[in-house]
């Protein structure tokens, strides 16, 4: 059946609620933690930023040029991001050591890029779903309840293009930061793994945005690439979260923070002991 206006609105509501919640928690963290709070100072902030931008991007698309079922496919990603943000704030909270504009720009670019990579991944899943229905001749008697393959592919390419540009900027900034890090690469296996994964994601998206020329990747392959790219990016974040404390990840020098709340969903302050010696490595560079 064609999605009725009521259904469309019903599906938009949780997306809009996710955007509002992410922004609200982000602002709450900014206001409730301490005076020295910096945007993106922890992975939780970054995930909240991704969630908010991703939800707003979906809402904008649905407002200006709606794609049936996009909301439905976006909701699991939003749920995942929220859950991860919750975990990152509650169980694996480690603030970044933000001591330069390079790092801030790197983090912002990586998170923004991740948001659009997520959108491309959602579009890829939607494309495969629509294609599968066409090949299985399912519901052909029903009015189309999905956008055309061409439209979904266009969304995929556009999202991948924006994601690729911002990720490229983030990676370049990460390289600059890495070059200034005196720690030998040999001592940073996690970083090498992270860098490899990030480079793979970048490569996937480089192919994706050139799919008109690399036409062998056109269609379902492009969709799978976008999904795989998003999955790899999530894996990169996971590696960042799992990176052990190294000498190249020093505790924040001005650790006069006494109330750094690891849980954005509650007002309970974390102890300084927990914060110390547990600084998080940014997604694509070692500090």
């Amino acid at each position: 059946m064609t999605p009725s206006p009521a259904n469309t609105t019903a599906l938009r509501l949780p997306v809009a609620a996710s955007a509002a919640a992410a922004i609200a928690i982000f602002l709450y963290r900014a206001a409730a933690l301490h005076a020295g709070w910096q945007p993106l100072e922890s992975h939780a902030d970054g995930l909240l930023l991704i969630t908010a931008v991703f939800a707003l991007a979906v809402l904008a698309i649905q407002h200006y040029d709606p794609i049936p079922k996009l909301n439905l496919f976006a909701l699991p990603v939003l749920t995942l991001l929220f859950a991860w943000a919750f975990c990152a704030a509650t169980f694996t909270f480690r603030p970044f050591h933000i001591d330069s504009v390079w790092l801030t720009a790197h983090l912002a670019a990586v998170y923004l890029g991740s948001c659009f990579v997520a959108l491309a991944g959602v579009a890829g899943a939607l494309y495969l779903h629509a294609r599968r229905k066409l090949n299985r001749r399912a519901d052909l008697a029903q009015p189309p309840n999905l956008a055309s393959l061409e439209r979904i592919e266009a969304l995929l390419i556009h999202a991948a293009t924006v994601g690729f540009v911002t990720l490229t900027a983030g990676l370049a900034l990460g390289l600059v930061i890495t070059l200034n890090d005196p720690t030998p690469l040999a001592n940073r296996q996690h970083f090498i793994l992270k860098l490899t994964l990030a480079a793979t994601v970048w490569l996937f998206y480089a192919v994706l945005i050139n799919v008109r020329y690399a036409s062998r990747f056109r269609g379902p392959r492009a969709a799978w690439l976008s999904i795989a790219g998003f999955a790899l990016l999530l894996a990169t974040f996971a590696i960042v979260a799992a990176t052990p404390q190294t000498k190249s990840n020093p505790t924040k020098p001005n650790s006069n923070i006494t109330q750094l709340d690891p849980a954005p969903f509650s007002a309970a302050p974390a102890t300084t002991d927990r914060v110390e010696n547990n600084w998080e490595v940014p997604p694509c560079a070692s500090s």
Partner: protein
Amino acid sequence: MRILLVGINHRTAAIDLRERIALAGDRLDRVYDRISADFPLAECIILTTCNRTEIYIARPSHESPTPDQLLALLAETCDVPRDTLTAASIQRQNEQAVAHLLRVACGLDSMILGEPQVLGQIKHAYDRATARALVGPILHRVFQETIRTAKRTRSTTGIDAGHLSIGSIAVDFARRIFQRFDDKTIVGIGAGPIAKLTLRHLADLNPARLWLTNRSPDRARDLAQQLDLAGPNRGPRPFEDLDQLLTEADIILTATAAPTPLITADRFKPLIRRRRHRPLLIIDLAVPRDVQPAVAALRNVFLYNIDDLQSVAADTNDQRKSLADAAEPQLLTAANQTMAAIHNQDIGRTIRALRQRLHNYADAETARTLTKLAATDPQSLADKLPDALREHTHRLINKILHLPLSKLDQAEQGTHLGFYAAALHRLFGIEEHEQQNETQSPDTPAPDTAPDTPPAPRVPLTSPLVSVQPSPTMPITSRDRKGAGSPALANQSQHQKPR
């Protein structure tokens, strides 16, 4: 008021009779003129489509035209034997007529279930009759309510969703794959009637290029002319260009009579690279098939054959049937509500007219009594006043009751007088004991029917129903009976067609 429907449609009449009864152009005007001239009190809308010719009439309950008169008029205008027309006709009244119109408007009575064109045709018929001033408040209400209900029903049930024709299904498939067509190339292979019908639908997508090819170039040229394909990017191409066309195409429609597949996997595989892996929709309407099934397994190729399209058409029809069944109760409810509203409107108008008429009677009698009293000697006014008031009251009551009771007296054979008696009892709240008192009164003749007796076929002039007698002192004159004392009263008896 009564609403009548008389007509024929595809369920009751074969196409040759429908053709003969089809009202269009001058013939439609003639029928409208005849109805307007012969039945001035009637509102009329004629719905004429390729599948039906139906006349909707609203008129006062006991007026013309009757269904027989309408059939006679149709038979005469269309030069069709009356019996033939009567046998193939449908006749409906009131709620049934409105329910039928609602079913027609929703496409539930159409040959293609749920088709949307009929609603536009109903609007057109309504506008045309309105322009001829043949639509009054009743048919206005019926048709406006019908159009509103049909739109609502269509949107809530989705009865017109999906496609039933092969051409529109092909277009639907194309829309599931492509977003825009102004940069696409459509190729038609074959020049038969199926190819023509389907290409006509596809051409409506305004593709950037539309090529035709056929083993016989002449037939391809003919088809291009029939489809009005002219211009640099559309028209026939030689059959030898087939590989090139397969490379250029985004949508291929093939419907040839070739005994073996024209497009095989071996032929198409080398072209995929030249096509740069662009998505390709192939609609194969040929039997035997023009496209080898293995082609469907190639990446970015979407192949549908005639069975796929027919299966979609059958599924759509089944869905529409179930939706139509679900919509029927809604339509019946809507028809009943519409008729209830019409009855309310009708009774309101009747009450207003009755009230006005009674006021006119009262004004006329008051003027007469005052004139008479003015001529009276003031000395004896007080003595004469009671008699004058009694006379005034008698005359007024007689005037009020004269017309209905004389109508009852003149009732035709078969009129259910018992119904009228019951109605009078109920409307005027006449209790049983009042009736018994009247019966016991020596001055009043006994009723000729027992309370439970079925209605008498005819009532004589001496019937107790006409028991209002003029005052012994002031007999009613014939002038009084006609209400001629007031010119307005005379006019009240004239029905005026509300428009």
